[in-house]
C-alpha cells in the first residue's frame, strides 16, 4: 500500500463535480446546524441517515464528512456570539471568545477560530493520511479476541474515564448496550428485550435514539424552564486579524492541533480533554495572562478551537482504520456505513479504497470550503442565530419526526422517539452523559459478536483474551485507565495525611 497513490486516487473521487457539490452541501449544512444552539454534528448526521436510502455510499460519506467538519466550525460561532455552547467541546471557546465579543473584538475571535479550525483540520487530515496505512497494517493482525479487548478498552474510556462520573457513564453505556441488543439476535435468531412488541423485533434504529436524546430531550429541557433571553452580540470590528493577533494566534493553533489530534485518535475519543488542556497551556504561556477571564485573550480561542478540530479529525482514525467509533458522531457514521452493509475497518480500506480515500480527500476539500464559508459569509450564519426560538424548536421537531416516521410509518416509533426524549430530559437534568448510550448501542452488538467468535475459535476458553499478547495489553490498559486515577488519589491522600 502506498499512501500517496491512494490519496491521489481519493482526490480523483473527491474532485468529481458531483462529489464537490456533495461536499459543499455537507459543509454548508454542517455549519448552519452547528450554529444552531444545542444541535451538534451527531444529531445532524442522525437526521440525515435516511438519505442513505437513495444516495450512493461515496457521496453520502463525503456529505457526512462535510457536516462533521462544518458543525465544528459553526459551533464556535455560537460560542463566541451567544455564549451558549452547542456542545461540550466548545465550552472553552465560549470562555474567552464571548468575552472578546463583549469587548468589541468578535471579528478577531471569529477569525482566529476559523483559521485555527482550518489549520487544525488540515493538520489532522494529514495525520489521518499518514497514519491510516500503518494502523490498518497493524489492525490486520487482529482477530476477534483482540477486537473484543479493544472494544472493552473503548467502553471503559468513553464511559468511566473521560466523563465526570464513572458510575453515571457506565450506567449510560450499559443502557445503550441493552438498546443495541433489542430485536433478533443475529446468531441464534432469538428475540431479545422486545416486550412482545412486534415493531421491536427489527431492533431500534439509532436514528430514533439519537434524535430522541439530542433533539427531543434538549427541546423538552428548554420548554420546561422559563426562557432566558440570550443576546446575540454584534460584530463591531472587521472580520480579520491585526498583525498582533496573528503573532499571538499561530503558535496556539499549532500547539492545539498537536494536543488535539493524538488524544482524538486514541481509542478514547472526546474533544473535551484536549480543549481544556490547550486552554490551560495557553493561559500559562500567554504574554498577556491578564486578558484571560477579563477582556478575553485571543490565545484562549485559537488554541482550544484548534484542539477541538484536530481531535475531531483524530476520531476518524479508529473509525476508518479499525471500525471503532469513539464519539457519538462517529458511532452514528458507523451505523450509516452499516446501513449500506459496509463494515469500516482494515478490510474496507483494502477492498474499497476509493470510498475511504475519497472521504479523506474530501476532508481536505471541505476544510478549504469551510474557510471561505466562514470568513466572508459570517453574516449569513449570524442571521441563523436570530431565528426566533419558537420557530427554531418547532422546526427541529418537524425534521425529528419525519426521519422517525419515515423509516417505518409506525406511531410506535414516534412513541419510542418521545420516550427517548423523556430519558434525554432526565439525563440532562441529572448530568448523565449521552455519548456512551449511542456508543454502547452501536458497539455493544459488535463486541458481543467478536466475543462469540473468539470463544468459538478458542473452543470456549476464556483464557484466549489473556493468552493473546495484543489482547492482554489492551485489557491491561483498560484496567490501568480505570484504576490509575483512584490509586493516584489514594497515594495523594496518604501523602497529605499526617503520619
Amino acid at each position, binding site marked *: 500500500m502506498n499512501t500517496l497513490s491512494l490519496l491521489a486516487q481519493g482526490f480523483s473521487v473527491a474532485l468529481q463535480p458531483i462529489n464537490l457539490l456533495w461536499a459543499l452541501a455537507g459543509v454548508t449544512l454542517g455549519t448552519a446546524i452547528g450554529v444552531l444552539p444545542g444541535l451538534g454534528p451527531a444529531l445532524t448526521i442522525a437526521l440525515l441517515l435516511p438519505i442513505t436510502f437513495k444516495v450512493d455510499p461515496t457521496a453520502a460519506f463525503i456529505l457526512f464528512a462535510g457536516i462533521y467538519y462544518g458543525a465544528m466550525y459553526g459551533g464556535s460561532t455560537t460560542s463566541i456570539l451567544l455564549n451558549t455552547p452547542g456542545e461540550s467541546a466548545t465550552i472553552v471557546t465560549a470562555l474567552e471568545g464571548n468575552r472578546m465579543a463583549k469587548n468589541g473584538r468578535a471579528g478577531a475571535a471569529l477569525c482566529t477560530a476559523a483559521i485555527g479550525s482550518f489549520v487544525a483540520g488540515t493538520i489532522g487530515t494529514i495525520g489521518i493520511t499518514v497514519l491510516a496505512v500503518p494502523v490498518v497494517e497493524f489492525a490486520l493482525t487482529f482477530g476477534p479476541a483482540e477486537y473484543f479487548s479493544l472494544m472493552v478498552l473503548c467502553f471503559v474510556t468513553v464511559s468511566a474515564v473521560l466523563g465526570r462520573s464513572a458510575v453515571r457513564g*457506565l450506567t449510560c453505556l450499559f443502557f445503550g448496550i441493552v438498546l443495541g*441488543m433489542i430485536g433478533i439476535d443475529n446468531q*441464534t435468531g432469538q428475540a431479545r428485550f422486545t416486550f412482545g412488541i412486534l415493531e421491536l423485533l427489527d431492533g431500534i434504529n439509532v436514528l430514533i435514539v439519537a434524535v430522541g436524546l439530542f433533539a427531543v430531550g434538549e427541546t423538552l429541557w428548554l420548554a420546561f424552564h422559563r426562557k432566558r433571553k440570550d443576546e446575540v452580540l454584534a460584530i463591531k470590528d472587521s472580520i480579520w486579524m491585526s498583525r498582533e493577533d496573528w503573532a499571538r494566534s499561530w503558535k496556539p493553533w499549532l500547539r492545539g492541533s498537536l494536543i488535539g489530534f493524538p488524544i482524538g485518535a486514541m481509542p478514547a475519543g472526546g474533544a473535551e480533554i484536549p480543549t481544556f488542556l490547550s486552554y490551560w497551556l495557553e493561559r500559562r504561556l500567554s504574554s498577556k495572562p491578564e486578558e484571560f477571564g477579563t477582556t478575553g485573550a485571543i490565545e484562549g480561542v485559537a488554541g482550544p478551537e484548534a484542539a477541538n478540530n484536530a481531535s475531531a479529525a483524530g476520531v476518524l482514525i479508529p473509525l476508518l482504520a479499525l471500525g471503532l467509533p469513539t464519539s457519538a458522531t462517529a458511532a452514528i457514521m458507523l451505523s450509516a456505513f452499516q446501513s449500506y452493509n459496509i463494515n469500516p475497518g482494515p478490510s474496507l480500506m483494502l477492498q474499497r479504497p476509493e470510498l475511504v480515500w475519497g472521504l479523506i480527500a474530501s476532508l481536505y476539500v471541505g476544510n478549504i470550503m469551510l474557510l471561505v464559508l466562514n470568513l466572508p459569509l459570517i453574516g449569513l450564519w449570524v442571521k441563523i442565530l436570530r431565528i426566533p426560538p*419558537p*420557530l427554531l424548536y418547532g422546526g427541529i*421537531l418537524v425534521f425529528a419526526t419525519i426521519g422517525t416516521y419515515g423509516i417505518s410509518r409506525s406511531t410506535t416509533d414516534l412513541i419510542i422517539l418521545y420516550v427517548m426524549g423523556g430519558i434525554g430530559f432526565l439525563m440532562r437534568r441529572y448530568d448523565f452523559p449521552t455519548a456512551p448510550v449511542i456508543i454502547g448501542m452501536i458497539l455493544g452488538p459488535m463486541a458481543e459478536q467478536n466475543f462469540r467468535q473468539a470463544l468459538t475459535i478458542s473452543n470456549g476458553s476464556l483464557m484466549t483474551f489473556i493468552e493473546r499478547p495484543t489482547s492482554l495489553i489492551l485489557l491491561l490498559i483498560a484496567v490501568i485507565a480505570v484504576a490509575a486515577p483512584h490509586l493516584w488519589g489514594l497515594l495523594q491522600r496518604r501523602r497529605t495525611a499526617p503520619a
Partner: protein
Amino acid sequence: MTPDWSRYRRAPAFGNVAVGVGVVALAGVLALQVLVIPSSPLYARVGPTVFPWIAVTALGALGVVLAIQGFLGGWAHEEPPGPTDAAGGLWFLGGLVVQVATIEWIGFILASTLLVVCTARAFDSTRIVRDALVGFALATIAYIGFDKLLGYRIGSGLVESLISRIF
C-alpha cells in the same frame, strides 16, 4: 457550563436517590425480559442470554450505587436555565401527544403543523397564525423531500393526497 463542585450537599438528595431506584427498577424489568429468552445451548458456545445478563446485572448494581450516592448527598448537576415553566412543558408534551394521536388520521403535514404551533406556544410565542404557516411550510418541505425525493412512504393525509396529484 462547568459544574460548581462546592455545591455538594450533605443531606440526602432524594431526586438522585429516585434516579438510582429507577435504574434498579429498569434493570428488574429487563431481567424479566431476559428470562423469557429461550437459551439454546446447542446453537452457539455463547448463548443469546450471556450478554443480556451481563448488561442487566451491571445496570442493577450501578443503580444501587447511584441510590447510595444520592443518600450520601448526591452529585452536583447543571442548574436549570431558569425557573420551572410547567405551562411551557405541558404545551410541549401536548404537542407531541396531538401529533402521535392525529398523524394517521390527518396525515404528517397537518399533524406536524399542530406540533409546531404547540411547540412555539411552549416557547412563549403568541403568534399562532405565523407559527401555523411556518409549521405547514416546513412540514410540506420535509414531506416532499422524504416522500417524493428520497422515496420514503410517509403515508397519506389530507394535504398529502393533494400534493400527490401535482407531483
